[in-house]
């Protein structure tokens, strides 16, 4: 038991949340981070889906790592990821259909998410299943945290709501006699990139040793 929750394993889990964050430090998976964060709900669903897929593909590849021929390892990894993505995509369609419509192709595109291939190549091919599982969950959650932060700001400023609940009342709007206006650029991916840069800026300001 003590081995399962040793300090090294703890670091495998916590590093990707902060000092080795897949988005803020490794700058991977940016494309989907820009595409799905215009509202909080799809951002959270996307973050959880990626977490599940990274965790389980890491475990499966880690179990298979001794038997995979080196020359075709990328294909094997892709098959595993693709199978998991298909399962997750179908679960989303079955239980949260509206969000899966909002996410559209980006669930399928998790296959091409650089975080997945990066973790499989860099970690699961060398480590045991339990460490790989922790690493996968950590990286997925590290990705999800950034998505939630960006999604929160974008939904609040772009739509005036959080999680679909209207925070800024309609009576404040300019067309209803108030002064406020929603920021249209927040709903575009261009602004997500700038927000992501701000997140990285703040993160580096606190962690000065990250190159």
């Amino acid at each position: 038991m003590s081995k399962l929750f040793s300090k090294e394993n703890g670091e495998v889990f916590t590093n990707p949340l902060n000092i080795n964050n897949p988005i803020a430090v490794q700058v991977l998976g940016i494309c989907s981070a820009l595409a799905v964060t215009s509202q909080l709900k799809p951002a959270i669903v996307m973050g959880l889906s990626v977490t599940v897929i990274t965790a389980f593909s890491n475990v499966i590849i880690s179990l298979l790592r001794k038997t995979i021929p080196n020359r075709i390892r990328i294909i094997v990894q892709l098959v595993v990821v693709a199978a998991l993505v298909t399962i997750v995509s179908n679960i989303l369609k079955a239980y949260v259909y509206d969000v899966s419509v909002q996410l559209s192709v980006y669930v399928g595109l998790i296959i091409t998410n650089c975080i997945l291939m990066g973790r499989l190549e860099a970690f699961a091919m060398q480590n045991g299943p339990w460490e790989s599982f922790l690493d996968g969950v950590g990286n997925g959650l590290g990705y999800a945290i950034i998505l939630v932060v960006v999604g929160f700001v974008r939904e609040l400023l772009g739509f005036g709501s959080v999680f679909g609940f209207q925070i800024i009342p309609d009576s404040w709007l300019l067309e209803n006699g108030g002064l406020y206006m929603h920021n249209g650029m927040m709903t575009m991916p261009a602004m997500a990139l700038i927000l992501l840069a701000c997140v990285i800026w703040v993160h580096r300001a606190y962690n000065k040793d990250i190159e």
Partner: protein
Amino acid sequence: MSALRNFLNKIKPSFQEGGKLHAFRSVFDGFETFMYVPNDTAKARGAHIHDAIDSKRIMSFVVIALVPALLFGMYNVGYQHYLAIGEESGFWCNFLYGLAAVLPKIVVSYLVGLGIEFTVAQWKGEEIHEGFLVSGILIPMIVPVNCPLWIIAVATAFAVIFAKEVFGGTGMNILNVALVTRAFLFFSYPSTMSGDKVWVNGNYMDCINGVSGTATDAVTAATPLGQLATGDPIGYSFCDTVTGFIPGSIGETSVIAIAIGALILLWSGVASWKTMLSVFVGGILTAFLFKGSIESANFSWFEHITVGGFCFGAVFMATDPVTSARTECGKWIYGFLIGVIAIIIRVLNPGYPEGMMLAILLMNVFAPLIDYYVVKSNINMRAKRATK
């Protein structure tokens, strides 16, 4: 003036090392060098040629060149208002109305922009740069008169932080700060930047009795570019578009006032005549080729260059020495492409009636590339000549 100099000399010690106001040294330094040319501009060694004026004086020239367009813009704001509500009004009445509408925008833009510049300079312990002197006056001139003040403040803050300070401040920016402000407004708050309702101020002001209020309904007026986008023929006479009695952003309507500014810039040598001329050549040529070819291209070339922000952009924006191409040959290419792209966007994309902004921003990004290839081709040419 010497009283001011004496006063500055008197309070100077308290801002220097060890003085009690040392923390605010950059604010003092910025103010002092704005009022007076500093004694020590750069070390007098190396191969530098020292110009008689420093960059704060150069920026002041640009501000002076902008004054005619600004004053006319104020007058036109009042003129358009009284025209739209159908009231007779005198010259001073028009001007005072415009002054009351435009002055708050100038104050807001300077307060926000300079506030950020001063804070950043203070924070980094650097001296305050002069770049925002020009941007601060440009920003109110390129927005519609009905644009709310807080939106201008947000956009100015965004542009100063993300287009300038993150790149390292004045002289390091890739994009023109004033145009980034406008682009941010245009994409973030499109209903305040385009359409028929934003160009004429509806606030009521009786300048004889000094009463003001917000009585009248929203006043609508179509700009020539709006008419272009909807495929209508131009609704204003050529004479009006040249003198500037048309709806539009505050400073951009009058070709004559902008021409006076252009003369000041060219006479003082601040702006490059090559960039300016090539923008017009590119724009005229493209408009000439497009004329009549498709349905939305029913403006003639002389109408294209007089309406909208074409002249304003060509004279004050494209020639920005920081963001434009710096090689002499590069200036021709840079300006020409701005003109071409501006007209292409206007004609082919009715969603973006003002192509000038997007064209200049796009070419800002390409200016370093143009310079790189101009320098490289020059090196190749000389290398060939040397080996022959």
